[in-house]
Every structure is written in C-alpha cells, then in structure tokens.
C-alpha cells in the first residue's frame, strides 16, 4: 500500500476517525489503534512477513527490560546488549546479505581455481527490514548506555517499531525522540494537521509529477544502454538525480506529514541537499536519519578508537562509515563502491580542514548565491550525479560501461527521443525548474510550502495549493513503487 493510492486514503481515513473520534483523549487506546493499523499496513502486501517483525519486537522488548534490570552487573548487561545488537545485525545479514556473501565467497573460490558448488538460498527479504532493524538496534544501545529507560509497555514499544508512516522507508526515528511522544496525550491539533497536509501535498507533487514521470523514461534507457548516445546517457544520469531525490524526499515528506496529522514530530530526512557546496555538507543534508544513526553508532566509536592517528584516523573512520552507508542500501558491490567513492571524497576536505568550517550559505538581496557558491553547488551536484550511476547500476560492469559510453564522441550530438518522450521530458524539466526554485526560496523552512504562511491573503495561499494539486492530478505519472522501499 503506497501513500499515493486510493487504498491508503481509505485506510488512513478509517484510522484517523478511530484515532481521534472514537478513542480521543485515551492515549493507550490510540496507541493500540496505531499498532493494529501499522501491522495491517505492513502485512497488507504479504502477511507472512508479520511474524518476523513481531518476534524481533518481542525479543528486543524483553532484552531491553533485562538489560536495565541487570545494570548493576555490567558484564551481564553488556552481554545482553551484545546479544540484542547481534540479533538485529543477524536479521539484516540473513535476509539481506546472506546470498551476497555466499555468492562472493563462491566467486573468490572460483577465481582461486577451486571448484565450489555452494548454491544460494531462496530468501524473501521483508520490506522495511533495514529501517526497523536500525530502530531495534538503536533501542538496545540507548537502553544499555542509560540514555533511555526501557519501555515497560509492549504496545508502546511495538508501535515505535512498526509505526506505519515510517516502517517501509523511514525516516528512522530514534527511541529517545519517538517513545516519549507515544506516551504523551495526543488530541487533534489544527495547525499541526494543516502543516502535515501541506507537507503531504509537497511530497505527493514531487513523487507523482517528477519522480514517477521520470521513472518510465529513465528505466527505458537503463534497459538498453548500448544503443544510447552519450549525450542521452548524460541527460538521463542528471535526471536520475532528480528522480531519486524527489522519490525519496517525496516519500519522507508524506511520511512526516501523515505523522503530523496523527500528532507526531518525525525526524526529518532531507535538508535541501542539492544546494550543498561540498560532499560533507551534502551528507549532512541527505537521508539525515540514516547518516546520523551511522554517525552516532559507527563513526563516533570508530573515530574515537582511531583518534591517535590524527587526520588519517578520521579518514579511516569516514571510509568505513561510508562503505556501510553504501552497503546498507543492498547486497551488491555497486553499493560498496558507491559508499567507498563518497568516503574517499572526504579526504581532500579533511586534509585542507574545509570540513571543520561550516560557513552559512549567504545570498544577495535578490536571494541568489555568490558565483563561488553557485559553482560549488553545481560541482557537488555533478559529483553526486556521477556516483548515482554506480548506485543505479545492476552491477559494476554495467556502471563501468555507462561511464565509458558517456565519455564518447556522441556526447556532442543532441540526445534523440521519441516525440512523446521529448514532450514529457520538456514538461518534467520545467517542473524540476519550478520545484528547485520553490525549494531554493523555501530552504530556511522544514517544507518549502511553509513559507506561504508569510502571505497575508489566505486566498492566494489556497490558489497555490490548488495549482499544485491540479498539476499533481493532471501530470501524475504511472504509479511507481518508492525506490527506497526495496532497501
């Protein structure tokens, strides 16, 4: 069930009614409504994956209480915490990486001239596993480090893990932020609901108008790379950057918006990454809930461990961290290379100490950046776009061929499209331009549409909402599954 579907709309209206009207003011019942609806939402496509989520939740809930009750005995408490973390990692490794490891091991044996008959297994990966296991692991770490008390209410904990707006693709909320919200009273708040609706509208526009329309064109080109001109491959690579961003940012805005309607403040996932001036700034603004998770639980301990090696210790910690960022996306060497590539991009920033200085992006009286910053933004976007070729490719060879084909003489020829695709691309590029313009002028707010509050005339505001909604209805692309659901 995707957010931009009729089935989700019906589902959400029912949940909303039960949540606010039937069980209003009763937090306990509201949480149970959320829990049951979350499990319904999660099992809607394939109910067989529900036991995995439920069993993992029960075990981690029990371990949380056990860790807390044995905190006087540090050794036992640490042992239980390690068990919980290994369980989370084990879930991920089994469902997501097991076949990848077998396959890679088998390839190494074959390369060494040894015959291997190790077959891979038919393992179905539960949707959202990368997201909910990270929630489970962070819960164990936070309880063990004494940052939070373990939850005594299974319903509350299970709702935190399975919360339907975020279970499929995040944002990955931390227990410190989310569990207290589940314990507090939630009544209908008009302002928060309006903000949520605006954020859903903005997310829907991005997803339906830009991402879904781009998907059909981009997928077609990627299915037939050898027969494309270099200029077309370059254009498609650039457009893919916008597809990925609008798809994932669109999803995140909708998830956060749905959360707001239910009275929750969900962690934000994007902070206008395409206006970043270097790759470090970019990663502070892209998929924030994942990068901050890895920063806290992987990068910080590693950089602390390597601190005696100075800058090179820092570089090593960053590279390991980014390989894991890549690998988090899936069991494929392309993701490892993608992560490594981004990790390596940090080296000059650390050696020149640019990374430690965060200068605010200044604009002139027309709201435009300096020439210097403009070129830095373009440069960062270009590097990102190139890295996404590795990210999008099925395997390293395909990525390599894509690169080779881009840097060929046909780069100077105009890209050829059918008249239908050409018209579609032209319309999408106009929408991308408008989208980026709205993002640019709204970049100081959580969602660019929030800046419409500055307008005194409420009718003008409604006209803008109506135009966005109408554009979304008229130009909506074929419904495509959100890209990040596969991760």
């Amino acid at each position: 069930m995707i957010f931009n579907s009729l089935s989700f709309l019906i589902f959400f209206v029912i949940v909303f009614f039960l949540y606010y009207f039937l069980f209003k003011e009763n937090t306990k019942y509201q949480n149970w409504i959320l829990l049951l609806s979350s499990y319904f939402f999660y099992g809607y496509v394939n109910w067989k994956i529900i036991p995995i989520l439920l069993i993992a939740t029960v075990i981690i809930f029990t371990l949380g209480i056990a860790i807390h009750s044995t905190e006087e005995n540090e050794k036992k408490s640490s042992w239980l915490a390690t068990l919980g973390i290994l369980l989370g990692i084990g879930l991920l490794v089994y469902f997501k990486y097991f076949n990848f490891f077998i396959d890679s091991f088998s390839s190494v044996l074959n390369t060494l001239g040894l015959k291997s008959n190790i077959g891979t297994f038919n393992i179905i990966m539960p949707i959202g596993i990368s997201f909910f296991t990270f929630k489970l692991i962070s819960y164990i770490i936070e309880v063990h480090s004494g940052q939070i008390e373990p939850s005594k209410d299974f319903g509350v904990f299970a709702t935190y893990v399975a919360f339907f707006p975020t279970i499929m693709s995040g944002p990955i909320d931390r227990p410190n932020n989310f569990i207290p919200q589940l314990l507090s009273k939630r009544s209908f708040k008009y302002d928060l609901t309006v903000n949520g609706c605006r954020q859903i509208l903005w997310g829907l526009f991005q997803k339906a108008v830009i991402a879904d329309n781009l998907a059909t064109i981009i997928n077609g080109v990627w299915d037939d790379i050898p027969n494309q001109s270099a200029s077309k491959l370059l254009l498609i690579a650039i457009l893919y950057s916008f597809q990925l961003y609008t798809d994932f940012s669109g999803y995140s805005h909708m998830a956060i918006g749905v959360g707001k309607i239910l009275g929750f403040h969900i962690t934000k996932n994007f902070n206008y990454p395409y206006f970043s001036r270097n790759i470090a700034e970019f990663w502070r603004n892209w998929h924030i809930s994942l990068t901050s998770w890895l920063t806290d639980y992987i990068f910080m301990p590693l950089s602390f461990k390597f601190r005696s090696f100075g800058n090179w210790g820092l570089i090593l910690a960053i590279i390991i961290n980014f390989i894991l960022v890549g690998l988090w996306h899936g069991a494929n060497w392309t993701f490892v290379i993608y992560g490594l590539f981004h990790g390596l991009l940090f080296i000059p920033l650390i050696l020149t100490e640019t990374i430690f200085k965060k200068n605010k992006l200044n604009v002139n009286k027309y709201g435009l950046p300096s020439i210097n910053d403009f070129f830095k933004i373009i440069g960062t976007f270009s590097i990102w776009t190139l890295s996404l070729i590795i990210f999008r490719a099925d395997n390293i060879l395909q990525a390599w061929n894509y690169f080779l084909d881009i840097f060929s003489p046909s780069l100077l020829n105009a890209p050829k499209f059918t008249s239908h695709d050409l018209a579609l691309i032209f319309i999408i590029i106009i929408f991308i331009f408008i989208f980026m313009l709205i993002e640019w002028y709204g970049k100081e707010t959580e969602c660019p549409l929030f800046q419409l509050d500055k307008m005194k005339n409420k009718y003008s505001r409604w006209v803008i909402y109506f135009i966005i909604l109408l554009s979304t209805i008229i130009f909506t692309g074929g419904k495509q599954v959100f890209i990040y659901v596969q991760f």
Partner: protein
Amino acid sequence: MNKTKITQEVEAIFRKVFDDDKLVINMTMTANDVDNWDSLTHMLLIVEVENTFNIKFKLRDLNKMKNVGDMIDLLVLKIG
C-alpha cells in the same frame, strides 16, 4: 587543578577548535548552541582535551557528556 582553572582551559580549547576568540562556554551549553559543533569537531575537542590535560577518555565517558558541564565535571573527577 581546581574547577575554575579547568573551566578556563576548556574554554581556551573551545575557542581554538571553533576558531572563535569570543566564545564563552557555560555549564549547560550543548552542541546545539555552538555553530560547527558536530561529530567531527566533537572528536577534535576530545583529542584537544585529552592532550591538554594528559588524560584518556573511555568511550563510555563520551556517552555521559551531554553538555559542557558534564565534560568539566568528568575532568574534575579525573584530574581535580
């Protein structure tokens, strides 16, 4: 070394790491209150504090430091 002296030394470290001669620290100050205080500069701070006071933190110590006051209290405990 008493708490006042430690606080002065820590303030000097903050000014050096964040390249701000006018930075004044207080006990409730957190990363949210200082521009550029992120995971990277936090590690620079830790290394500078360790070198200045000739001590070694444990990873567990890092988790306990929720604000500048926690850091100074920990230093008082270690060297005071």
